[in-house]
Every structure is written in C-alpha cells, then in structure tokens.
C-alpha cells in the first residue's frame, strides 16, 4: 500500500546508509570529485558485491535483485544523502531502464548481467549540444553497415560518458530515432570530460565518427524508450535530492544548536529557527512527492507522467533552497 514501508525497505536503506557513512564521507567525496574518473572502482565493486546495488532494478533472470521504483527511490535517497560519487545513476537507472524498455531481450541478456554485477558501466546518450532530451531534433545519424550500423555525430551531457563501457546512443535511423549500443572503446569514438558545476556527477561530450553500433530494440523505437526511461529516472533523481536536502537540514539544525553568538545558540534566533522550519516543511514535502511518484511507478498508475514531473520539479527546488539556506546558516564555511 502506498507510503507503507516493509521491513525489507527499511533494511535496504539502513544497510546502504551504514555502507555509505563508511565509504563516502565528505573527505572522500571531495577527493573523488576532484579526480577525472570521478569514482572509486573499489567502492563500486563493493557496492555491487556486498549490496548488489547496481543490479537493484535489474530483473532476477538477468542477475539483478528485481526490485522496483520504491526500493530504487530509497536507495537513491541514501546515495543523495552521502553525495556518493559513482556511476550508479547512469548505469543502474538510465541505461538499465533504457535496456528494459527497449524490449530487446538479446541486448538485455548481453549487457544487464555485467551491469548488475558492477563490471559494466553503462550510460544513455540522448542529448546533443543543446542539452535537450527530446529525440525529435537528434542530429546524430546511423547508417547501415552490413549487419550493424555506423554512427556519426555528437552527443553531449552524457553522464559518466568518459568511463562508460557501454553507451546507449540515440541516433536517427531510416525509421526515425533509434537506440544503439556502442562500446566505450569503439573505434571512431572520442570522449571528452566536460567541466561540470556539480563535480560529483561527471559528464562527457562524445564525437562519433563512423562508430560501429548495434541496434537495441527496433528502429524508430527510441522516442518511447527515452520517454519511459526518463519518467522513472527523474523519480530516482528526485529521491536523491530528498536525501541531499535532508542532509542539508540535518547539518543546519545540528550547527544551529551548537553555534553560540550573542551568548545563545543561533538556533534560538527566529531568523535561523524559522529558516530551519521552512526547510523541514520543504524537505518532508519533497520526500512525500518523491515517494508518491515512486509508488505511482511501482503501481504503474496512470498518474505517473504527471506525478513524476511534479516530484522532480518540487524536489529540485526544495534541494536548491535547502542547500542555499544551509550555506547561509553556516555563514560561508
């Protein structure tokens, strides 16, 4: 039932939280975000080996845990709380859902087991230079080459594109925008890391110059795959934002209790107290929104398109404000 969490849910979240407290403290996040690679392969391997996290929503028949959007949301909330630097969102959300939604069983069998066990880092390359996810204006082209295809064009804003072993590329084929599997080490593929504002989540620009590729799903099928994938992915992102916002609130409240000015804790001043109260309002509301959307996804509700967008929009603004207020309360650390 909606908003009713099972013991398994709670264990998932608690276990992951413990793992991340240990493996992804602030200092480690700062260290990793300053590297070009952007994540620690050892931690990633442990996330896979100990917790099976990369395969969380991968069906069991492909070696995953077969969990649903609610479990994913809970996991993402914990990762957002820890600002985990890892290719989880690209691999385990974007690429995983894209493969599943493509309906291509052969591709699923080929790629998902490696993704689930953490040995294949994967991503979805939709946007080009304008950053739009809409498949309509895609300029990257696919041309037939024997049994396969060759891709030419540019992709940008590709999450973890600089390290991905598998890149699912949206390109125009004869029948319209289609999804293709490209190896990270494919010939003709040049990858350039982009300088990102959020250094904990790396992005890359790709140049494709006759890159060999395999069709995933059917020609002309990418629009539907991308739409359905994003619908679920933004819920995961919203949950991640809830985790981050909650951490901001926790930090603010903790600091406001111990920081003394004018002979009293700053949290006793209404200016700070009310800011914290408003943060709580927004963080809890964001959580309700993300969870509701996750349940709508789990239940395959008709509301999903609406509520997933609402959750994403609300959680983004709540996280932004929580981060800004957290800075203000800490006063410039």
């Amino acid at each position, binding site marked *: *039932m*909606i*908003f*009713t*969490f099972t013991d398994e849910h709670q264990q998932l979240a608690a276990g992951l939280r413990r793992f991340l407290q240990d493996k992804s403290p602030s200092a480690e996040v700062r260290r990793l975000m300053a590297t070009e690679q952007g994540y620690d392969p050892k931690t990633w391997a442990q996330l896979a080996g100990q917790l099976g996290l990369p395969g969380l929503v991968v069906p069991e028949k492909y070696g995953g845990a077969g969990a649903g959007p609610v479990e994913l949301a809970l996991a993402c909330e914990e990762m957002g709380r820890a600002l985990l630097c890892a290719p989880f969102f690209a691999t385990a959300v974007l690429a995983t859902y894209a493969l599943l939604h493509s309906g291509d069983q052969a591709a699923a069998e080929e790629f998902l087991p490696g993704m689930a066990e953490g040995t294949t880092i994967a991503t979805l390359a939709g946007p080009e230079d304008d950053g739009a996810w809409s498949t309509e204006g895609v300029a990257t082209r696919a041309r037939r080459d024997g049994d396969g295809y060759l891709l030419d064009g540019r992709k940008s804003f590709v999450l973890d594109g600089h390290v991905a072993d598998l890149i699912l590329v949206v390109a125009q084929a004869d029948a319209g925008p289609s999804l293709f599997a490209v190896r990270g080490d494919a010939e003709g593929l040049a990858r350039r890391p982009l300088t990102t504002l959020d250094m904990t989540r790396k992005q890359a620009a790709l140049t494709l110059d006759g890159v060999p590729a395999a069709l995933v799903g059917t020609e002309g099928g990418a629009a539907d795959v991308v739409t359905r994938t994003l619908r679920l992915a933004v819920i995961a992102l919203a949950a991640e934002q809830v985790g981050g916002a909650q951490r901001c609130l926790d930090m603010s*409240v903790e600091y*406001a*209790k111990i920081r003394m000015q004018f002979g*009293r*804790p700053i*949290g*006793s*001043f*209404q200016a*700070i*107290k*009310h800011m*914290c*109260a*408003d943060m*709580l*309002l927004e963080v*809890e*509301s*964001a*959580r*309700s*929104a993300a*969870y*509701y959307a996750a349940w709508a996804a789990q239940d395959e509700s008709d509301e999903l398109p609406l*509520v997933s967008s*609402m959750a994403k*929009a*609300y959680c983004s603004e709540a996280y932004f404000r929580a981060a800004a207020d957290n800075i203000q309360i800490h006063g410039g650390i």
Partner: protein
Amino acid sequence: MEETASSVRQEAREWIDENFDPDISLRVWLERLADSGWAQPGWPQQWCGRGLPPDLAAQAYAEFNRVDAPGPPAGLGVMLAAPTIIANGTDDLKRQFVRAVLIGDHAWCQLFSEPGAGSDLAGLQTRAERDGEEFIVNGQKVWTSGGQGADYGLLLARTDPDLPKHRGITYFALAMEQPGVDVRPLVQMTGESGFSEVFFTDARVPASAVIGEINGGWGVALSTLGFERTGLGAGSGIGFRLSGFGGGKLREQQENTTVGEYIEAAKTRARSFGTNSTAMIGGSVTPLVKLATDLGRGDDPQARQEIVRLHTLSSVNNWNGLRARAKVQAGGRAGAEASLGKLMSSAIARQWRAAASVIAGPQDMLAGDDGPLRGRVALQFLAAPGPSIYGGSDQIQRNIIGERVLGLPREQDPSRTLPFRELRVGTQSSKTEAPGEAS
C-alpha cells in the same frame, strides 16, 4: 479477543448492514452511531467510543465511508470540546457533554483569543472570580468561530493574577445562552462573518464546570490546541468523509431530514465545487484551469507555471497527509510531516491568489458577479491572508516546528515567571487594539 483489521472491518460491516438505513432521520442515525461507539471508534469505550487504536479506527471508517454514511456533526464540539473533556474533565462533565456532541445536541465555540492575547495566549485578561459555587466572568474574547450558533463555549479565564501568567488560568465549560454573554459578529474583509467578539458582563459558570483543576487551565488548553492543530491544515484524512450537522438551533431540521436526503444533498454540493466544503476552495486548480481556458490564457506559459505550482503544493500537502496516515495505520506514529499542514495551507492560499491573479489579468480588479468565477477569485483574494494568521500564525507554527520537531532551543522568556499583574500585555488600550498578531 484481540481486534484485528479484518475483525474490525467485519464488525463494522455487520453493524452497518443492521443499522444503516437511508430512510431514518439524521437524528436517529446519529443516536445509533453514538450509542454503538462507531461515531468515534477511537474514543474510550465508556465514553461513546470503542477504544480502538488509530489504525483500527481507520479500518472502521473505511467501511462507513463505503456507504457514504454521515458521521457526527463536524465542528469544535467533536474536534475540541469532547476530546478535551474526555482527557481532562470529571465524569459528570463527560456524561453531560460527550454524547450530546456526537448526536448534535450542543454546538461549541472556543473562547480563547483576546484582543490582548493572540500568539501569547497565556497573556489573557478575562477574569473569573469565585462566588460561592459559581464563578463570575468579565472580559472579552475575540475571533470566536461559530460564536453565534454555539450552545457552549470552552472558556479560558484568569482566576489568579498573582501567579505567573501560565499558572493562574482556569478552563471552563460555559453556557452561552445567558444574559451576561453578548456575541457580536465581526465582518471580515470578504464581507463574510465567520467570527464573533464575545463580551462577558458578570456571566456565570458553575464551579462544577471547571475542566481540570482550578488554576490548572493552561495544561488543559495545550491539550485542546493539540487537537486543534491536528484538525486544521492537511489533517490526517482519517474519519467520516461526510459529517452530519447539529447544535441546539438545528435540532428540528435534524429530525426532519432523512439520512438518504442528506447524503444526496452533500453529493450535489460536492459536484458543483469539486469538494465537499463550500467554505474555501482550498488548493483546487480546477476553477483556475477553467478560468484560464475561458479567458483564452490556457497556453500562457506563466499562467501554466503558476497553476502547476499550485497543483504541486496542494498535491504535496495531500501526500504529506497520506504519508502521516500510512504511518499511523501501520501502527507507527505520525512524524514531522504531520505538523506541516497548517503552514502549507497558508502557502497554498497565497499561491492560489498568485495564480488567480496572473490568470485573471485585468479581470482580477473585479469582484462580486462582475468578477472572475463569479466573484470567487476576489473572495479568495481577500480570504488568502487568513490561514497564515488563524489557529496559530505562520510565525508561531515555525516556532513550534523549530522547537518541538527540530529540537532547536527556545528563546528566553522572562515573562513566564513574572506575576501576571506585573506583566504588560496587548497594547494596553483595549479599545483600538488588534489581536492575534504574528510573532
């Protein structure tokens, strides 16, 4: 035998099959409901309830809502008076008042706020002086909802001004129909009159009507305010979807309306407004979408942004309520999300106004039948400041959330320890002052 969700549902279903009849009068139905304990399954068994925990009570309500059965009259009687008396009153008071509220014999009002005591309720100045077996009440209350129809009032009055402000207050159940009580309606900006001022001139209340201890009224008041906060804002969503009506003045009507007629009328109201309340539009975007479409602004990007912003706020508020409810139903306690409805409802009222204003454009200048949505946009405009003030202002809510939910330290308040006589309250010029400010 221990009750379970399914045992409660079955019991309720069986009772409904036997007792629910659209052709009996609302009066008879409410009596059956009260006497069976199903009117408030969460109340104690000896006081018209069934002693069920909230999650099991919710199971019972679901059964009643399945057949649209009306519950006891909505209002301060069920929401505040009876719970306060059950928790703090003598058995005599419970006998006198609890069932009476459930069957709609008494309507209640709350006599707390004063011109000089709004956010700082404990600064109240209305006096109750002992006179044998009675107290004599003098002073003034304000912002009394439903003061005109009320049979009884929950009165806070100062009984010892030599004690610090929180410690010299007594809580009474006062009969409103007496010569010393003068109820004067207040006209709001909207032209409506939902509130009253109440003046006491040697009004009388028996000592037996003290709820709790003499000079111990503050603790009792806090329990009332707790019930109030749960009732305003998002609410838990637990209870009868449809409420009956009552109060001494509506007794006859209650006997002349059948349950079936009443349900039908309520459904018609709900259809025309998209809600079963006629008071406030709340956060519904439906009328605004209609307005935007009518005015040809359905494609205006700003109008759309504002509408979605409103829809998101009010959806999120509902989801907060659902989440709190799910925790309760799962046998847990509602968390922080339960304290937020009041603050959120202020934001929703403001956003409704902002969205309406963008959509209505120049039409926003007009009111009454000339105004958009036949004047409802203008009415909402004028009503929008209300939710951030009544029932504890936004500022007080933020204090409460900051202190009680987040555990932030309170401000020092030297006025807590001064004898009340030495304290300055209000503006010290009772004629022109304004109550209920927001600090």
